[in-house]
Every structure is written in C-alpha cells, then in structure tokens.
C-alpha cells in the first residue's frame, strides 16, 4: 500500500502535540519545528502531485478495511493540487507570522497552526463523507484558537460569533449526512455515487433534501450570499496572518461542492438535476456583487480585504456552478490565483496596519511606505483581475467558460461591472492610505495608548521582529502570482486534466471500490 497519502495528515498530527508537550516554552525551537514541518509537507505534497499527475487514483484504506466498510483516503489530481496549494500557502503564512512576531502575541500559535493544516489537508484527501465532517471539525476547532490569537475584546466577540455560526453549520452538516445515510445506507463517497444512481426515481424526496442541505453547509463554509455574514467580521478581526491562512478555508467549501456535486450528485443524475446549478449560480453572482460593493464601502482595511475575499469566492462559485468541464478548468485555475492573491492582500494589510492602523483615514506617511504601497498596488491588481497578473487570466477563463450558458449576459455583466467597482474601491483605499499621507494638511494623530480593541498598541508589544523576513513571504506570494501568469499554459493543462478526471467519475468509483469494470 502507498503510505505517502496519509503522510500530510500524520505529520502535523505528530508535530502539533510535540510542540505543545515538549517545547512549549522554547519559542525558537517551536519556530524551527513548525517551519520544518511545513517544508516537509511541501515536499510530501510534491511527491503526491507527481503520483497523481498521470491520472492514477491512489487509495489508502485506513486499518486495511476495504471500502465501503472502512474509511478511505483518496488521492486524485484535484486532491493533489489542493494539498500542494495549502502547503505553499502555509509556508508563506508561517514565515510571515514569525517575521512579524505575530506568533509570540499569544500562546500555542504554532501548535494550532499545525492542527489547522491537518484538518485542511485531511478534508482534501478523504474519500468518506463522515470523515469529511470530522476533518471540518478539526480545522474549525483549530481555527477558533487561531482566530482569537492575541486576544482583545473586539477579536474575542468576533470569535464568539464565528464559533456559533460554524457550530450551527456543523449541526446542519450532521443532519445532511444523516439524511443521506438513511436513504443510501453508506457514507463512502464512491459508494454513495453508486447507490444514488441506482435509486428508483420516485423514492428520492429525502435524497434531494439531503443534497440541498449538504449544499447549504458547503455554502456556509464558502461564504456564499446569503450565508456570508460570518466572514467579514471574522476575517477582519482575526490576526491578519491567520486571515491569510483562512483564505484556503473558504476554498475548502468550494472544493467540497465541486467534489460532491461531480462525484455523488453528478450533472447527469436525473433526481438532482437542476437542483444545484439553478440555485448556486444566482447566489454566486450575488456573492460577487456584495463582495465588490463591500470593497467600495469598507471603512477599514481588514474589512476591505475580507470583502474582496468574498468577491473572489463569488467568481470561483460562478465557474463551479456552471458544472461543465471547461468551467471547472477555469474554476481550478482561479482557485489557485484567488488563494494566493487573497493571502497576499491580507499580509499587505497587516504590514499597513502595523505601521499606521487599519482605519481608512489619512495619516502621515508610514515607514517604508513606498515599498508597502507597491505591494498593495500589485495585490489590488491581482484581486481586481487586471492585467498583467493571473487574476486577469482567471476571470477571462471564467467568462469564456460561461459563453455556452443561457445566463451568459448576466454572468458577463456582473463580472465586468464588479471588476470595475473593485478597482474603484481599491484605488480609493490606496490613495487614502498612501497618497493623502503626503498632503501637508494631515496632522499626526495623538499617539494612541491602546488600539480600538483594548490591546496595547502593536509597536510596544511586537518583540524584536526579524527584520525584513516579513517582506519575504509577501514577495514569494507575488512571485507565485507572476509564475501562475507566465506558466498559465502548463497550469491550464493540469487543471484541464483535473476537470476531465472530475467529470468522468467512473474511474474514481471503480478504483475506490476495487470493482473490475462493470
């Protein structure tokens, strides 16, 4: 059996308790182990990608119980890509957290970070619906800890809201899984696909309920309108490096939609035909619109980036909800872009907030203002989808994929108009942050004793940040965006092969259930 598949889950599961129990008082050792673990995860992800590249589907049976009786982990092109995306993002975030000193502003940052990675990677690899729920809970419980890292009254209150919202989502998830189990008698995704296809058409009312409930759960995670209310307050009040890591968490929702609704409730399935696409597309369009209007209306930098994250989820879900191989190709390209761009923007926002606070009002120039302004400009271009960065390529692909849809004019109009609104919003924020600072009428504000949330101001607290290291991950993410643009050809070939694999699930089902071709 190929043991590489479980390595991305085992490694953080071992490193995190080790950090808590053995080296809890050694800050430098914690940093070394955390970075080493993330680097190792990157290497593992590369091995997995190499294995999945040629289209083989790897199956890992936990405890050697054959599917559908045991839990399986499944590695296909989509899983391998998402795992690598997560580990690359994690490397940038952990370096930034160390470089900016964020990891020392509360306890157990690195341990929680490893648990969070374990949950995310597990969710991408599992082939069992209930196991997906368990990994969702693992990543959520770690994210609760990370979300309130560093403390402060506003952050804690936002944390309560975030936890309560997600607990409700988890209850809904269990109800959906229970409904599916009561109809099909299985929770293995491949087996579900077989059983659902065999159900007689008149016996599917409960199944449709289950399918819609499951979509609701994933829509909460993906922050689809009207279930997006948790996201702006949570992301804007979380520590910015943590928010950058959360950029992959909303993608977990998108991934789960793509996985479940191509494999189990596929586009060819008569009983759930039109159930998903018809609802998801208008919701995705509204999400995109709400996100970009939020960018324009935000009065605080953290919220601005959080709303742009919602907008990019909207674009991604438009592509997913078309449910054609071409649209899935565009969606997979866009998911890479959107993860890196959103994370980069959160890190740039942290650079700005550390220097002058997050409110979008003119203040005197900040140190290293030119460099930060250049990074903000690059990130804004990427998020708004302007050339020359990959956001432009991504949006072009999504629009091209929508060309055969009945809704083509609505989709094009919404994408183009919201891009314009986002550009205006970003330009407004950028000029307030960086240009109005040089206006001589701006007076320096009284030095604040405390920030809004009651925490002491960052400058007094930040313990000896490693100079310059904070900029390295931001530039690395920018480089990743440039590389994604330059290497758009090879990236597209991979996502095209991935989409082809997703829309031909027979291979996946046969491999997991180990049935000779029936």
């Amino acid at each position, binding site marked *: 059996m190929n043991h590489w598949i479980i390595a991305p889950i085992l490694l953080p599961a071992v490193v995190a308790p080790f950090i808590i129990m053995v080296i809890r008082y050694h800050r430098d050792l914690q940093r070394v182990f955390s970075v080493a673990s993330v680097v190792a995860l990157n290497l593992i992800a590369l091995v997995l990608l190499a294995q999945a590249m040629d289209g083989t589907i790897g199956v890992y049976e936990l405890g050697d119980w054959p599917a559908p009786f045991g839990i399986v982990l499944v590695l296909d092109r989509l899983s391998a890509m998402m795992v690598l995306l997560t580990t690359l993002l994690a490397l940038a975030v952990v370096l930034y957290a160390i470089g900016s000193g964020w990891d020392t502003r509360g306890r157990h940052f690195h341990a929680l970070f490893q648990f969070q990675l374990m949950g995310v990677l597990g969710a991408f690899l599992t082939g069992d619906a209930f196991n997906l729920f368990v990994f969702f809970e693992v990543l959520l419980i770690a994210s609760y800890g990370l979300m309130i890292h560093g403390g402060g009254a506003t952050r804690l209150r936002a944390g*309560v809201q975030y936890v309560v919202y997600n607990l409700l989502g988890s209850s809904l998830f*269990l109800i959906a899984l*229970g409904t599916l189990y009561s109809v099909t008698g299985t929770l293995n995704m491949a087996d579900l696909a077989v059983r659902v296809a065999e159900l007689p058409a008149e016996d599917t009312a409960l199944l449709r309920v289950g399918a819609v409930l499951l979509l609701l759960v994933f829509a909460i995670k993906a922050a689809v309108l009207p279930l997006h209310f948790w996201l702006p307050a949570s992301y804007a009040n979380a520590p910015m490096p943590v928010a950058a890591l959360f950029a992959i968490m909303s993608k977990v929702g998108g991934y789960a939609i793509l996985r479940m609704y191509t494999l189990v409730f596929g586009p060819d399935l008569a009983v759930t035909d039109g159930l998903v696409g018809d609802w998801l597309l208008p919701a995705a369009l509204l999400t995109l619109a709400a996100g970009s209007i939020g960018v324009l209306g935000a009065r605080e930098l953290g919220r601005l980036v959080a709303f742009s994250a919602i907008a990019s989820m909207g674009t991604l879900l438009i592509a997913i909800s078309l449910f054609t191989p071409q649209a899935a190709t565009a969606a997979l390209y866009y998911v890479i872009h959107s993860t890196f761009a959103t994370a980069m923007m959160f890190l740039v926002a942290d650079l700005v907030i550390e220097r002058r606070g997050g409110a979008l009002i003119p203040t005197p120039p900040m140190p290293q203002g030119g460099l930060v302004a250049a990074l903000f400009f690059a990130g804004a271009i990427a998020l708004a989808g302007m050339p020359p960065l990959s956001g432009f390529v991504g949006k072009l692909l999504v629009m091209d994929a929508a060309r055969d849809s009945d809704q083509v004019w609505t989709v094009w109009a919404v994408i183009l108009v919201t891009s314009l609104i986002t550009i205006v919003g970003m330009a407004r924020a950028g000029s307030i942050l960086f240009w109005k600072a040089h206006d001589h009428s701006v007076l320096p504000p009284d030095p604040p004793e405390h920030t809004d949330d009651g925490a002491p101001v960052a400058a007094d607290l930040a313990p000896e940040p490693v100079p310059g290291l904070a900029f390295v991950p931001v530039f690395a993410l920018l480089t990743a965006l440039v590389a994604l643009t330059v290497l758009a050809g090879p990236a597209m070939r991979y996502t095209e092969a991935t989409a082809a694999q997703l829309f031909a699930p027979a291979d996946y089902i046969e491999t997991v259930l180990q049935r000779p071709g029936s």
Partner: protein
Amino acid sequence: MELLLASAVGILTASGIYLILRQRSFPVIIGLSLLSYAVNLFLFATGRLALNQPPILNKYAEAAYTDPLPQALVLTAIVISFGMTAVVVMIALSAYLSARNDRIDMTDETGEDA
C-alpha cells in the same frame, strides 16, 4: 415510538433555534446544546428504529439486528459537540469578561456597531 422520537427531535430543534435567536451568549450556548441533542437523536434514527436487537449480524440465523453504524456516528458526534461546547463556553466567557457585553451579534447595548 416513531411519533415520540420525531416529536422529540422537532421540539429540541425548535427550542434550540429559538434560544440561538436570543443572541446572548448563555441562551445561545444552551440552544446549541439542544440542537446537538436533536441532531444526535436524528442520527440515531437514520439506522431505522429497532427495539431490543443486537447490533451484530448473526451468521447462524436470519436474526434481526439494528444498524451499528449510526451508533458509532452518534458517538463521534457527541464527542465533537461536547468538545465544541467547551470551547465556545471558554471563548464566550473571555469575550464577556473583556468586553462586558454578552451579545453575540457585534453590536453593543445601544445597537451601535462595536
């Protein structure tokens, strides 16, 4: 039996949702607990209701049995919801102690955004 279980799930869910909509940490946490009880009962019933049956297949006789898998699922769900309740109690408590306000919708007493 079916009526009893279904109405228990329904009443627990309804009370849970009512309490969550109160938007104060204590009722919300109680509401979440009630909701998780409702979910556990519901999960239990997904294997069909069978009274006094062993959760084992007997290969010597065509004996009736009850589905063991939902019981395992309920066990997992109970453990997870217990842990989550502990976490939310801790976070809500520290939020209340630092902000002196137990509303969970990020507005203060006067309805202004915090």
